[in-house]
């Protein structure tokens, strides 16, 4: 293991890892005050390992960001015997659970780096990272994420979920179509909190990722996915089941944009030779369906979304003048005048907006974080248009709309290249 990783990990943690020795399977569990859910998740993970990998040497690595609710104690306190008794399963090997604390900031990066370093030190063959917040995690998820790596030679297993048609709009309306159009691979969940990967990919990412730069702190999961695509590692998707309905407020949109769109825009700069040469996109091998749509009723305050979009366009005109082309800005100002019922933010205008933001981010026309923040009101407009258009639509309608948006992103890729190169 490299010196950088040795000094990054605490002595105590390295000692614990040395006691474990080499493993076949590593389960990474990044936590921070997850006492409510962590106990059941650890039990489910243990159950999955006992059921599907009883002959493998396995370890659960909990990278904790300084929880004050006893999360690490809960992780190490879950007895494998309870799982054995309740499920009548038996492991032929010892299943270790190790917990360590990482430096509090930047959280996501430090947790991921700890897990990857442990995977490298223990020479793990197949690894998964599990979200500590998921209430719907099932033992089968362990198998679905690990088997493709363990048995089929894939280096990255991205999840697909059963989601509500209006859940994850940032992913369906920006992250998935844009990453698909640019990198040429149809990964439905490029920013996932549950995924499987090989030890080889872990070591490669560990050595190549610039851990100390400012951008490394956020969206590490997305950066991991993009690194796998860039290096042409074999990637597949695996259907897990229903994704939790995580209630997040509209105010959380800016951090979400920083976590996802920021790293994506940031990656476009070094990856220019890769994405500029890609034409079209390819489907991935997928175990199970690549999506499933739920149609329950959800409460959406369309009036508030419209008001925030319109006021954003009006108040941020000076900011948009630096980011957007005059034609796009005029179009947006016209959209901002539309009423709630006839509100329409066309796919073409949305794609042009996103591409112009990406090009402006590349050129640093203003502070890059400000560019990301300025996208928030426009995304609200796009979300409103999506609700308005599909509130009575079936799952198939929504899926067709997402597919059309993806094709629009692919069709307008030359526009991004043109914007990217203009003024250089």
């Amino acid at each position, binding site marked *: 293991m490299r010196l950088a990783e040795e000094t990054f990990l605490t002595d105590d943690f390295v000692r614990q890892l040395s006691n474990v020795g080499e493993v076949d399977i590593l389960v990474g569990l990044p936590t921070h005050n997850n006492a409510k859910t962590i106990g059941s998740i650890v039990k489910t993970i243990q159950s999955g390992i006992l059921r599907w990998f009883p002959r493998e040497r396995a370890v659960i690595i909990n990278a904790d960001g300084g929880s004050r609710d006893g999360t690490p104690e809960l992780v190490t306190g879950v007895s494998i015997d309870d799982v054995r008794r309740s499920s009548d399963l038996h492991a032929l090997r010892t299943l270790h659970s190790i917990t360590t604390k990482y430096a509090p900031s930047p959280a996501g990066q430090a947790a991921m780096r700890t897990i990857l370093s442990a995977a490298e030190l223990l020479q793990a063959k197949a690894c998964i990272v599990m979200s500590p917040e998921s209430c719907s995690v099932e033992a089968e998820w362990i198998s679905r994420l690990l088997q493709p790596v363990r048995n089929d030679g894939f280096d990255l297993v991205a999840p697909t979920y059963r989601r*509500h048609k*209006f*859940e*994850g*709009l*940032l*992913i369906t309306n920006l992250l998935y179509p844009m990453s698909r159009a640019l990198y040429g691979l149809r990964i439905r969940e490029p*920013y996932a909190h549950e995924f499987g990967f090989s030890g080889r990919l872990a070591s490669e990412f560990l050595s190549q990722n610039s851990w100390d730069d400012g951008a490394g702190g956020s969206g590490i999961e997305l950066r991991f996915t993009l690194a796998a695509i860039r290096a042409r590692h074999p990637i597949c998707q695996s259907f897990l089941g229903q994704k939790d*309905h*995580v*209630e*997040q*407020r*509209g*105010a*959380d*949109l*800016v951090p*979400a*944009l920083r*976590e*996802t769109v920021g790293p994506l825009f940031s990656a476009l700069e070094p990856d220019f030779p890769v994405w500029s040469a890609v034409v079209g996109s390819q489907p991935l091998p997928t175990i199970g369906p690549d999506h499933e749509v739920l149609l329950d009723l*959800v*409460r*959406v*305050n369309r009036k*508030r*979304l419209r*008001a*925030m979009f319109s*006021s*954003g366009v009006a*108040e*941020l005109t000076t*900011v948009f003048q630096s980011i957007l082309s005059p034609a796009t800005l005029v179009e947006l100002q016209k959209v901002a005048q539309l009423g709630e019922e006839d509100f329409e933010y066309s796919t073409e205008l949305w794609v042009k907006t996103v591409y112009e933001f990406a090009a402006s981010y590349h050129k640093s*026309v*203003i*502070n890059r974080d*400000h560019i990301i*923040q*300025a996208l*928030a*009101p426009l*995304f609200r407009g796009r*979300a409103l248009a999506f609700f308005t258009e599909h509130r009575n639509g079936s799952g198939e309608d929504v899926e067709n709309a997402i597919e059309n948006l993806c094709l629009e992103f692919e069709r307008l890729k030359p526009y991004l290249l043109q914007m990217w190169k203009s003024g250089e």
Partner: protein
Amino acid sequence: MREMIVSELSQAVQELARGFAHYLPRLIVMLILAFAGWVVAYVVKAILRSILRLIKFDRLSENAGASQLLNKAALPPATEVLSRFVFWVVWFGFILIGVSVLGILGLQEQIGKFFFFLPRLFIALFILFFGLLAASFFSRAALLAAVNANVPSPRVLSLLVRSIIIVFVLSIVFEEVGIAEQTMLVAFGIGFGALMLGLAIAFGIGGRDLARHFLEKRFVHPKKDESEDEFSPL
């Protein structure tokens, strides 16, 4: 009598010639220094212009809001203004050195003062530029944060942030160049104090309900806001 006049005249001419002969080399030195100064100033201007273009100073200046000010005053771009300014300062410095060689009484002290003032002028300009940059950055940050938090009148908030920073920067700049130090300090103190008092009164009287609502929401019973949506962007 005639001889005496001729003698006095010739003596005066000789003294004039001696005086001229005494000053001529100094005058030549001054002219040489002025010429050399022009050459040095021109080279400095060219180098500075290249460096500023390389570091995209115009864009920086645009971000600071300085370009808009220059446009309004029908002046060339910031790179050009700064390089021209440095050209004139360097050349003027050389001319003053040349003038000091002439040894004219009284000028020496003024020239000394000018050279003493020069570093302070540059520091003041430096503070002014980066102050404008900071004002632009923080006012934009305030604007974006206010828009995304759905705070009413975000532009007023942004303008307030910009104004406070600019007033603060100007007070430092005036103090640095030594213009009406006391007046500026008192004016800043009064202006800033009045602004803060005004804000405190405005928020205290006008925002009681808002503050109570905020505190209740934050610390007492976190209730679900009916206006919030039941979907996650991720």
